[in-house]
């Protein structure tokens, strides 16, 4: 997935993925069961039994897993800032070194 792009920008340059607030997460795994893109990974033997293991798999601007989280433990980056970042990266790409 490392060569994936989103809107012409390398996906790895767009920091869009859920962040787990471990003070709220009750490890019900609803988000992991919901997400078809393999963003989360279960760690049964660790204290943090769920981690965002593959942030680059998260569909930029998608927040659907957050709707499955009853304790509201998932947050996402600011959408406007992300849009602005994508615009800036696209301009840089189009403008080359200049």
């Amino acid at each position, binding site marked *: 997935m490392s060569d994936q792009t*989103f*809107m012409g920008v390398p996906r790895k340059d767009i920091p869009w993925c859920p962040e787990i607030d471990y003070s709220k997460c009750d490890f*019900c795994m*609803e988000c992991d069961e*919901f997400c*078809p893109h393999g963003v989360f990974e279960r760690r049964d033997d660790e204290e943090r039994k769920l981690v965002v293991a593959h942030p680059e798999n998260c*569909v*930029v*601007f*998608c*927040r*659907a897993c957050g*709707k*499955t*989280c*009853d304790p509201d433990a998932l947050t996402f980056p600011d*959408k*406007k800032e*992300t*849009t602005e970042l*994508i*615009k800036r990266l*696209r301009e840089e790409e189009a403008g080359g070194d200049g």
Partner: protein
Amino acid sequence: MTDKDTRPDAADVVVLPCSGLDKEAGSASRELALRLQERGAALVCPVLYQRSPKRYEKPLSSGRLVVIDGCKTGCASKLAAERGLKLTDRLNVSEAARSRGVKPGKDPHLGAALEELLPSMVDELLEVRAPEDRAAAASELFAAPVEYREFGVDKFVFRVPVAGYFFNENDCWARVAGGRARVGVSDYVQQSASDMVFFEPPAVGAEVSIFDEVGSLETTKTALDIISPVSGKVVAVNAEVVEAPELINQDPYERGWAVELELTDFDSDRELLMDSAAYFEYLQGKAAREHEELYGG
């Protein structure tokens, strides 16, 4: 109860609630269902329905289905989706309570603060929406026939309009005409997500920025947000799709539109979108990649 006669009744409603034993919001969901039953609604017990679905064939085939979820786990919604039931309305008690300033607790007993909110939730569920709120305005703007191109991947055939549509990489489209846009999801989305069973529209009048959620869809397989390709104000939602979400499966680019927006910044939005030809090319690559990941080429 003094105003009982003036409020809408629930004679045509079938309620599928959360089973109500896991936490307080569940109890509230169960209590809401009982209050709707007092107003004439038919109840579907979620546990019995799983065990003996035939018992509910008759009410489910004739009434409008309202699902009440206790929390975001959405067991009742999932049950409805698994059975391919079409919803006409849905309420999530936790979200409804939080929006009214009450946070439901973990203890499954119903507390006074949440109980006090139940009458307003009953009213919300029985609210008769004003037709003008959902009316499609200026439909003649979008009456022109649409031509399509298609391509195949294995047994799947995907259609994309030849022109006049703009797409984001979330596979949502905007058909733009006369300062307005209709927004929906692509043929690729409807085929991947399977049968649509519920469309939760945004509020008419809502201000939307590009990439904001502009409604959500529930299918027999999954749930997804409609990510708006354009900025604007919601001027209409497609009442036909609210009533019959399967229209999105049948005709995703025309009759299956979701919302209509008055555009506010299309010149700027357009820079971030693909036109029909670019999306066709993009989708060919995406569909081929996904097919390879799923079936190994």
